[in-house]
Structure formats: structure tokens, C-alpha cells
């Protein structure tokens, strides 16, 4: 996990990378889900608003919706995870992002996101 990530209370993270943002779910969320068996991601070009469900992750036990930490347009999708969802549980696998987006979100959208250290305190 990267210290400059910003997290939601619903366990998504967003990480600024140049002109894009990477979005995924936190290690804590992965740990809580257990064995991940199915991941459904949106198509590139899809546009989502903040807090809108953009993906579904299913563990053995249940299906969970994943929500946008900020608004934006999907420009890249992690197809590797769609094909091998179990990689998300693999601690040696590093590319755990779900989508990359272009965003023109303003400060208001970032206001309720938690610094990674605060998020960690919250869940521990």
C-alpha cells in the first residue's frame, strides 16, 4: 500500500499518478473479502460520478459493489484481474489497481477522503 493513497470509508483507494488516477480496493478490504473469485470492471470510456458503483468483486461468500472515490472517465482497465481474480489475494502480486481514470474532480470531492494513515487507524 502506498502512503499517498486516499481512501474511502467503504474501502476504496485513489492514487494520483501523473495526469491519471489509479483506483482500487484497500488491503484491508481484500483481507476481509477472503478468496476473490470474480471481478467485473467497466469498459474504458465509461463515465462515473463520485460514489457511483463502477465494479463488482465477488468472494466465495458474497458479491460486493465497488464505488468511485472521485468522479471520472475510465481510461484503463486491469484485464489481468478480470481473467485471474485470485491475483488480488496474492500478496506477491503488485498490480492491484482496478481501473485508471481521468478526472477533473475538484477539492470538494476529495474532502471526505481519508489519508492512508487515518484510514488504517479507522479500520484497525
Amino acid at each position, binding site marked *: 500500500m502506498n502512503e499517498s493513497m486516499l481512501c474511502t470509508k467503504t474501502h476504496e483507494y485513489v492514487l494520483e499518478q501523473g495526469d491519471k488516477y489509479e483506483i482500487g480496493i484497500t488491503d484491508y478490504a481484500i483481507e476481509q473479502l*477472503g*478468496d476473490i*473469485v*470474480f471481478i*467485473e470492471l467497466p469498459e474504458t470510456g465509461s463515465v462515473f460520478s463520485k460514489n457511483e458503483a463502477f465494479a*463488482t468483486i*465477488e468472494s*466465495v*461468500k*458474497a*458479491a460486493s459493489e465497488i464505488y468511485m472515490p472521485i468522479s471520472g472517465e475510465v481510461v484503463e482497465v486491469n484485464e489481468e484481474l478480470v481473467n485471474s481474480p485470485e491475483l488480488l*489475494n496474492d500478496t506477491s502480486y503488485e498490480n492491484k489497481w482496478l481501473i485508471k481514470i481521468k478526472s477533473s474532480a475538484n477539492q470538494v470531492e476529495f474532502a471526505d477522503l481519508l489519508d492512508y494513515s487515518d484510514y488504517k487507524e479507522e479500520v484497525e
Partner: protein
Amino acid sequence: MTKQTFLHDKHIKLGAKMVDFAGWDMPVQYTSIIEEHRTVRQNVGLFDVSHMGELIVHGEDALPFLNKLVPQDISKLINQKAVYCQLTNKNGGIIDDLIIYKLEEQKYLIIANASRIDEDLNWMVRSKRGFEVTIVNESHNYSLLAVQGPRACELIKSLGLEELPAFFFIKRAELFDINLWVSRTGYTGEDGVEILVRNEFSEYLWDKLLDAGKEFGIKPIGLGARDTLRLEAALHLYGNDLDENTTPVEAGLAWSIAKNKTEDYNGRRIIENQLKNGTDKKLIGLKMLDRAIARHGYEVYSNNEKIGVITSGGISPIRGDNIALAYIKNLDNLNVGSTIQVMIRDKLHDAEIIKRPFVAKKNKECKNI
């Protein structure tokens, strides 16, 4: 206040993830549901199922009393034999599914679902007028440990129990100098035993079994894998696949109903009418034709018309595909081999009706070693 089994501390020490199940704080997994599932199919797993209920029915009229409560014929039971039963209401709906063991003449043990113990007791007490019978709830005195998998019987034999009970039999035994009951039953589709032991010995027994089981590859198994295992074996889960508005005939349990039973039982007229003339709904097995996962409550369609609902669904770690149980309208053109659809997040996904169980059961042909 959630209840805890006498093995609760053991689960915590083993690092289990705990969840609420029917009011009990139970281990859902220790490491990974899929890994635990494979352990039970390949070697042997140890389950704490102490949340299950134990009821004793005894007295002069114990036999006619039980025969009034279930469609099965309890008079066929010889001593120490068990039978899978349903407790039916006046409409033939299922109040609970049970295993009834004949311990001795006029004395029977009932294993009931944790979530249904109160309903079962209420129903039985209300039904006992005119019968010389005593019903005792022993649930709070006993722990139940399940040892399941292809190496389960080997393990138990290695503990000095030379003669295991035959399939669906129970016997009094001694393991590690503890007096207990061993029955050749389970909820995984594998060969194995369930061990009924007084609470004060359960922790000791748990540790001893894990220790002695090491050379057989034993692992503790949580309720998560218990659910995927029973689904592969197409064993019903009360509350998902069975309820008070579903009869044993609709649930595909006609095989378990006694055909020429002398005594009347609750719901008999309706059940026999369904056996003769068919039912409006039927239970089917499905496999998904893509990677989508059907789950409890999802709707089932045929030709864009809603025809039913998924009652249990998930992955099959052994088959490598996704499977489900569903109730659908009993239409003649929908049979094994037919393709129907499941509505998953507003999209229809193809599924094929296939035979149950989804994975061949290993316990039926188990050798009576």
C-alpha cells in the same frame, strides 16, 4: 448477545474469521474457504458444529409420536440406525430438516438446525398431547465435532476405534478415554463421522483430533467451506433451500418419504397428492454457462418470463465452475440439459439445468470399515 460454542477460544487462537450464524459467533474460515474446501475433498477436515441442536425424545409413545411428525417411517429404524427426516406442518411445509437416531427402544436423538431449535421444540410440545413422551433439549450440554473427508475414517480408526459405525449408524465409543457418540454422518458428501461429546470434553477432544490428524493432513474447517461443500453435494440448507412453504416433494426429497407408512403424519394428504399428481414448483440444479455467480434470491428466467428463484449458489472449487440450486415452475419442457437464464445485476446469464449432486458423493459407497 451472540452465543459461543465451547470451542470459541480455540477458533480465536487459530486465527479464524468469526461471523454471526443463527445467533452464534462461528468461524467462517481459518485460512481460505477454497483451501479448506480442498482439504476436506482430499484429506480430512475438522468442523465445530456445536451450534446444532440435540433433542432427546423418549417414553412409551416415542415411536408413534415421531411417526406423526415426519413423513419417514421411524418404525423401520433398528437400534443405532439414523434416518434423514423433515419435520412437516399440516400443509406439508418443512419446519426443519433433521436426522433422527434410534439410540435404544423408546429413545431417540434428534439433530436439528441451530436456527430452528425453538420452532422445533414449540411444534413438538404442541403436538405431544395424548402421547406418553418426554422431550429434552440437550443442546446446551453437548458439542458436535464433524470429521469429514476421504481420510476421516482412517484417522478415527487409528485412535483405537476398530469398528466404525456403518453409514447412517451411531455408536457409543471411547476416544482419548472420553465417552462419546460417533455417527457415520455428515454434511459434505464425503465419508466421515460426527462426534457428539459433552461440552466439558470438547476442547480436549478438538486438540487431540487436530494433533492426531496431522499425519492425515487434517485442518480446521469453517462454515464457509461447509457451505460450498454441501452445495457441491446438493445438500439442502434450511432457510435457503427449505422453508415452511416448501414440501419435501417440491424440494426433491421424495426419495426420503416412506411409501407405505401405516400411521398418519402432518401434511400427508398434501404430500401424497403431490407425489401422485406433481407439484407447481420443483428444485433444480444449475451450472452457469459463463463466469457469473448466481446467489440466493436472484431471479430465474425462461423465454424472458420469470420462472423461479435461486435458493443457493456459488462457486464449485472442485468442478471449477459456478453452480446453484433453484426453484422453478414445474414445466415439462424444462429438464436436465435445458438452458435457462439467471438475472445477475440487471443482465440475463445463461445457465444449464444439470443433475444433482454436482460432485459425486463418496459417503454412500463408503466401506464399512
